[in-house]
């Protein structure tokens, strides 16, 4: 007769993915289970051993390791291990060691495979982790979420070698020889760090490399007492020590750097090399960036783009925060643009004039998510002449925008794209355009142009984009009339505060009541933050970085800056999580959530976040009340 295994059935029914299985499948599972016992501190699985079972921890706790011996994961009651070995080549990939006395339920591989075939939810539970590893070209490296949670400061191996800008090139060469360094950071003691004026090290103002010594000193026969300030490069990429390892990695890939100086508020604290982080590098988003650049045809590129949702879901599962996800998605988006521009130039021939391709909106703010359209523009060289050069840039823009659309970045409804001749302007024309928006603002014009106030150079003369950012910051700061109109626009979209009394619903295409978390949450928050950022002359584009500048300028009541940051993070994360759920369920992700899906906890927090936005809008109204009176200090 069939034995009853109620205790075992009930155990399985408490834990995913078994809790989703129908009763008869769980009963079958219990029947097939074998039980094994290990006392504390014993090996359960050794690397490379054959593996025939999926293991479920009934009681106790184990640790799993990477091949190099680093701890990979700690697991306890109800957790599962061995799936990777079963999915790969039936060899143990991650050795397992007990931390406590442990009782294991072992499910034979054949039944595991059958259940995967029969139940989609069951197989998906294992696929997320499994498939990304299968794709991992660096397959001997275990996957790792350290990149998204570890800050650069934890990874600095080398001290930065610095020298004052007045020192001679000989001193520099001697110092570099002594430290066996191929580059050196140059500081200026006369430019103290604003946050710490007593610091006599001064800011980093440049970098001097072997190459500079060769090309600018020896080749030009300069004297050996030439100050380094005269020959150093001032064009350098730095990263803040507060950034995540992940961001450093993306920065290096984006700028094709092998070493990245790390600064704390522009004071040098170290240098990290690609090799320092390369062992961590199995992040699928980084692999995606690499594979974008490796593609040869538009068709291949669109195939690569299909991986984007999986990469997004994976980051969400790794508990990345909205800033990491936003910047990873933005870097990926930029990479598509860069690759498309490279292809366009290969097809159309080299550009007749220098230009800068701009990203606008969420991509420029590093706040891009999975549901996004393309907003872009071009800065042309001032020598631009429509008759001679117009056709080239029109074709270039069409190539890129069509390519982006094919890769899943939909055309912009408002036609804010480089294909629109109105948004292919020369450098001077762009400055005039911004001047006009700032000096003679009209609410109507600003309503459609606020997206231009988040801009970033993606390709070509990216310095022009920075110059434009500086131009905007200088002109908008303290310009109350402009800020006033911008503030008015920032009040046009209100948070859905009828939250508890019944949501303020929007009818989406399928006529289900929902709230749009972008339109009613993150977008108005970004708007509010942009107004304050422009008011204090911040050149940052990212909302969180803008908030740092705003908090430092002390224009908000105490704590309010942090509240805004928390509210933005929370709403963005809810939006991100529900998009990931949509993707996993095979639905088209959108910005809407159906309130009945939210837990009581999420409702409470969302309500609080929306109240922060509401109060921030009230403050904005109060501060930029009239176009004539200066703001209240």
């Amino acid at each position, binding site marked *: 007769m069939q034995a009853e295994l109620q205790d075992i059935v009930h155990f399985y029914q408490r834990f995913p993915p078994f809790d989703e299985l129908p009763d008869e499948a769980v009963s079958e599972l219990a029947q097939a289970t*074998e039980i094994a016992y290990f006392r504390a501190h014993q090996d359960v699985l050794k690397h490379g051993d054959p593996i025939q079972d999926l293991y479920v921890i009934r009681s106790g706790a184990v640790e799993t390791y990477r091949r190099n011996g680093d701890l990979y994961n700690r697991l306890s009651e109800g957790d599962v291990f061995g799936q990777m070995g079963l999915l790969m080549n039936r060899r143990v990939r991650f050795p397992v060691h007990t931390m406590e006395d442990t009782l294991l339920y072992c499910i034979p591989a054949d039944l595991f495979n059958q259940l995967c075939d029969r139940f989609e939810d069951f197989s998906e539970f294992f696929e997320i982790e499994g498939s990304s590893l299968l794709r991992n070209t660096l397959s001997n490296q275990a996957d790792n979420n350290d990149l998204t949670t570890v800050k650069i400061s934890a990874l600095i191996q080398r001290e930065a070698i610095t020298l004052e800008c007045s020192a001679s090139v000989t001193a520099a060469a001697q110092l570099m020889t002594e430290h066996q360094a191929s580059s050196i950071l140059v500081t200026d003691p006369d430019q103290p760090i604003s946050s710490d004026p007593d610091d006599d090290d001064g800011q980093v103002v440049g970098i001097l490399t072997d190459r500079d010594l060769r090309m600018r000193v020896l080749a030009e026969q300069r004297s050996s007492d030439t100050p380094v300030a005269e020959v150093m490069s001032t064009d350098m990429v730095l990263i803040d020590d507060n950034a995540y390892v992940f961001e450093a990695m993306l920065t290096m890939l984006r700028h094709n750097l092998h070493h990245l100086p790390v600064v704390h508020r522009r004071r040098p604290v170290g240098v990290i090399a690609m090799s320092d982080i390369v062992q961590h590098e199995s992040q699928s988003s980084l692999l995606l960036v690499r594979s974008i650049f490796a593609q040869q045809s538009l068709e291949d590129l669109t195939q690569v783009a299909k991986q984007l949702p999986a990469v997004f879901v994976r980051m969400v599962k790794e508990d990345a925060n909205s800033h990491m996800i936003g910047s990873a998605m933005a870097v990926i988006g930029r990479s598509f643009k860069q690759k498309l521009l490279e292809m366009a130039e290969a097809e159309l021939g080299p550009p007749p004039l220098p230009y800068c391709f701009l990203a606008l909106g969420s991509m420029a703010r590093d706040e891009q998510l999975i549901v996004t359209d393309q907003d872009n523009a071009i800065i042309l060289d001032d020598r631009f002449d429509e008759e001679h050069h117009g056709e080239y840039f029109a074709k270039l823009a069409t190539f890129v925008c069509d390519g982006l659309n094919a890769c899943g970045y939909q055309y912009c409804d408002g036609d804010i794209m480089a294909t629109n001749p109105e948004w292919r302007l020369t450098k001077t024309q762009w400055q005039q355009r911004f001047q006009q928006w700032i000096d003679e603002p009209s609410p109507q014009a600003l309503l459609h142009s606020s997206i231009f106030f988040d801009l970033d150079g993606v390709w070509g003369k990216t310095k022009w984009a920075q110059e434009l950012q500086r131009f905007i910051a200088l002109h908008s700061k303290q310009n109350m009339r402009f800020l006033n109109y911008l503030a008015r626009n920032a009040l046009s979209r209100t948070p859905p505060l009828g939250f508890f009394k019944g949501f303020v619903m929007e009818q989406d295409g399928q006529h289900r009541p929902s709230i749009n978390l972008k339109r009613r949450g993150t977008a108005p928050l970004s708007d509010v933050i942009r107004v304050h950022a422009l008011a204090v002359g911040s050149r940052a584009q990212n909302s969180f970085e803008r908030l740092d500048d705003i908090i430092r300028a002390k224009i908000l009541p105490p704590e309010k800056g942090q509240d805004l940051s928390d509210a933005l993070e929370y709403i963005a994360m809810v939006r991100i999580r529900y998009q990931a759920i949509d993707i996993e369920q095979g639905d088209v992700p959108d910005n809407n959530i159906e309130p009945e899906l939210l837990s009581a906890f999420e409702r409470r927090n969302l309500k609080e976040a929306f109240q922060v936005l509401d109060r921030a809008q009230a403050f904005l109204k109060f501060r930029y009340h009239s176009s004539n009176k200066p703001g209240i200090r």
Partner: protein
Amino acid sequence: MSQSWTERFQALEIHSQDVRLQRFYGAGCVGGDTEIAATPFVALDFETTGLDARQDAIVSIGLVPFSLQRVFLRDACEWLVKPEQPLQEESVVVHGITHSEVRSAPDLDRIVAPLLDAMAGKVVVVHHQRIEREFLNQALLERLNEGIEFPLIDTMELEQRALRARQGLVGRLLKRPLGSLRLGDCRQRYSLPFYSPHHALTDAIATAELLLAQVAYQYRPDTPVSELWC
């Protein structure tokens, strides 16, 4: 015992009258010097109407075969048995088997064959040997006019040995308490999970797991099985 269990089984096979017992003994018994790691086991548990094998009856039987490496649930068995005497109210409370369930259950006679076949060739493991050994012997005596003998590992006995060793001579002289020998309490010492008690099959599984834990802590895989059985 001067005779080994292997030899004893051979003799019993010849002397036995019942074909089912002949089959059981014919499957043989592992030698006492067999390593635990190479010994096939079967954990056995009876739920009974009382504690006296002569007066009380078996109401359910659970068993599960296992090795030192694994407990094999796919080969687990469980039988309800119709007792000769009506069920006492108090025992119903303990094992939760009701009158109506028992009424439709077969007599033990019909279970003897599958039960002995499941035990054949394996070393029987129980928690508290008196119950299983005496009740089975008595039940067979009544039905087949023949009792049954086999080596048996008693996890309660092993636990008592382990606790005594830990208590030490001083503790024994000071009469320090030994600790509970109930199945659930023994399991707790090895961090084994709680299983709802007094269900024959669950108790058999619980007993099998307890032996694995006891061996992991007190013996080695190559310990001869004769050190464990009695």
